[in-house]
């Protein structure tokens, strides 16, 4: 099984970063852990993303694969990386659809490479859909309860 | 015989392939033989039907089309417990056809 993936098989259609797009081919988690020079890794739904936590300083791109849009493990993987302090590029790849975009953003994804390009107008509407959110997630949006109350120390 | 059924995309109504279009009435259903897949593929792609599939049916002694499975007979007529909401509210025998 190849441990690198063909570059360019998923075109990045949306990106919310100002730095240069990482073009390194992403290796599997196993391969990444076994070598010291890879800076891009692809996480599959069954991978434990916490295995990467000790190595985050050398990761510049994490691709999280959604082989099927209904498999939501990638949302947890993304959030866990952001919670661990990962601030590199976090890219959703695979069966990424318009109606998942806002949720993916909230889980910390900042670039999107769907295997089928989406209508940019539909995508833009989706990204901008929700002015408010109910809960804390990996993005910077303040949950509604902060608008209702002053943020307290929250033990 | 093999007949085709599904739901209208916009209204959800149960429909039956009558050879040209999708009818509300199971008695209009035609035997599609081996042609189910290409017909369904074409009709779904054009969004003229939704959630469609092929089922077995037979013509009874009166020439009426009777789906093999009770579920599709209930789909064809309506809920047995609300005759007033079925396609044949005035027919007291309609429920017997289902069972």
């Amino acid at each position: 099984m190849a441990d690198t993936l063909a570059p360019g098989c998923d075109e990045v259609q949306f990106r919310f970063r100002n730095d240069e797009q990482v073009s390194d081919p992403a290796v599997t988690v196993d391969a990444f852990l076994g070598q010291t020079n890879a800076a891009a890794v692809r996480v599959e739904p069954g991978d434990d993303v916490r295995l990467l936590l000790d190595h985050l300083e050398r990761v510049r791109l994490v691709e999280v694969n959604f082989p099927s849009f209904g498999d939501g493990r990638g949302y947890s993987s993304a959030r866990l990386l952001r919670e661990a302090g990962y601030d590199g590029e976090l890219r959703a790849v695979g069966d990424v659809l318009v109606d998942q975009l806002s949720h993916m953003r909230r889980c910390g994804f900042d670039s999107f490479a769907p295997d089928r390009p989406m209508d940019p107008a539909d995508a833009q509407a989706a990204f901008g859909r929700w002015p408010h959110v109910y809960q804390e997630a990996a993005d910077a949006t303040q949950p509604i309860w902060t608008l209702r109350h002053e943020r307290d120390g929250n033990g | 015989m093999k007949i085709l059924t599904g739901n209208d995309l916009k209204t959800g109504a149960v429909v039956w392939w009558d050879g040209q279009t999708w009818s509300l009435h199971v008695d209009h259903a035609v035997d599609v033989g081996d042609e189910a897949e290409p017909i369904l593929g074409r009709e779904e792609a054009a969004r003229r039907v939704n959630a469609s599939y092929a089922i077995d049916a037979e013509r009874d002694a009166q020439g009426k089309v009777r789906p093999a499975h009770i579920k599709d007979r209930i789909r064809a007529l309506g809920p047995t417990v609300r005759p007033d909401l079925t396609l044949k509210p005035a027919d007291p025998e309609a429920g017997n056809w289902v069972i």
Partner: protein
Amino acid sequence: MYRYDQYDQAMVETRVAEFRDQTRRRLEGKLSEDQFKPLRLQNGLYLQLHAYMLRVAVPYGTLSSAQMHMLADIADKYDRGYGHFTTRQNIQYNWIRLEDAPDILADLAKVEMHAIQTSGNCIRNISSDQFAGASAGELVDPRPYAELLRQWSSFHPEFLALPRKFKIAVIASETDRAAMRLHDIGIRIVENPSADGAGEIGAAFYVGGGMGRTPMIGPLIRDFVPLDQLITYAEACLRVYNRYGRRDNKFKARIKILVHELGAEEYKRQVEGEFVHLLEQGVEPPIAELERIKAFFADPPFDPDAGDELDLSDPDFKLWVERNTHPHKQKGYISATISLKPVGGIPGDASAEQMHLMADLAREHSFDECRVTHAQNIVLPHVKKDELYGLWQKLEEAGLGTANLDQVGDIIACPGLDYCSLANARSIPLAQKISQRFAENGKGDALGELKLKISGCINACGHHHAGHIGILGVDRKGTENYQLLLGGSEAEDTSLGKITGPGFDEDGVVDAVETTADVYLRERKDGERFLDTYRRIGMEPFKEALYG
């Protein structure tokens, strides 16, 4: 009850706009049915046996009269003049058109209602005790916690593509009126059991209950979570499920399978690990938010001088009071259950006219509030005893006065093959026949409490595993067949029913239920309910009577 602020209102309105856009894209062909299906499901819209079916959320079963009026209006305007109240305290409409669905959601939003996440692989409606805020037996009203969980779970970005559906129930009393142990997460609000935490209120978490193909009673995972960590703990439970719940087999994808396969101890260990991590992430709303929500659930302005006597000289009224009312914590008040199970009727169905009447009665007699129960009835929680007789007369006139709560005629039945494409057998005609049989044979009254539940398929939406008598419809070589189960309980003495033996056809199972009842009547000792007698004498005497 909870009232939306500008943010809540904005959320439901945004959801309507989103769904309107998704529907447009489906009708234009930009979305395939496979892509659209999970989106419409998360707005409660199924493609069902006869048409689209819409499941509207009734959060923890609580409705204002304005909301009940709107549910009636929707039945008239968009459906066929009636609705069906479900075993999760929601309401369903069976004849919906996709092209109308966005407008229906827009109408619901006008009265602070929605159909958000009432289906799909996400967190569903949070259910609760139908006597919450009225019953004397509760520690606190559980509904503020249910509302906190509702907001947390709505559009939670990490948990919208779970392995399977996720159902949460919240109670706050020893008595379990919400089948709490049979939920994916069951929460009981409790006092801190440890010696040095006396008086502190928190939550006990039971995780991994459920019915369906493999019914399981949820084990206790954590006996006390402080209130200011409730959401964090729930999040930890969900995250472990999202990451490790099975996705290879739809019938093994609920959290009960994960908890069962890992073992409760290992599942708990993983949750506790995630919990420690999440405590550092600041996901918990401040206590001020819980306090803000609680304020909406303060007691209504009870009349402290309300008379506490009831004139029970009318024997029909007396029977209804004995069966269909529940003691209230406030002197002079009582909770009343409106039966949606008239003899020979369709369990849980109400016409638009009946819904309008119940809404008016809620406004006039119950501080504008009513409840949907998971047994598919409606409760008026806060009725003045002085007004109870007049209320009952109005119910009687409208066919809503059947005095059968928790009796054999108070049948829980799923819609079954008459309405549901998942079903193997019809359940409603069976419920009608059983209810008629026991009205005719006169044994209904003698039987006392007997909870009979019917499911038309193994998905168990009728909760048949939890019936004192349960019936499961199966497909036996193309014909409808029915298995009989005995000894289930959804209450705090939770148990799962056992199959008696070979199945019966429809008339056969009606006879079998009567035979079963006869065994009970013959064998019972003083004060025993059917369930008690069954638990004492076991299955054998019933088996012998049924199969000879």
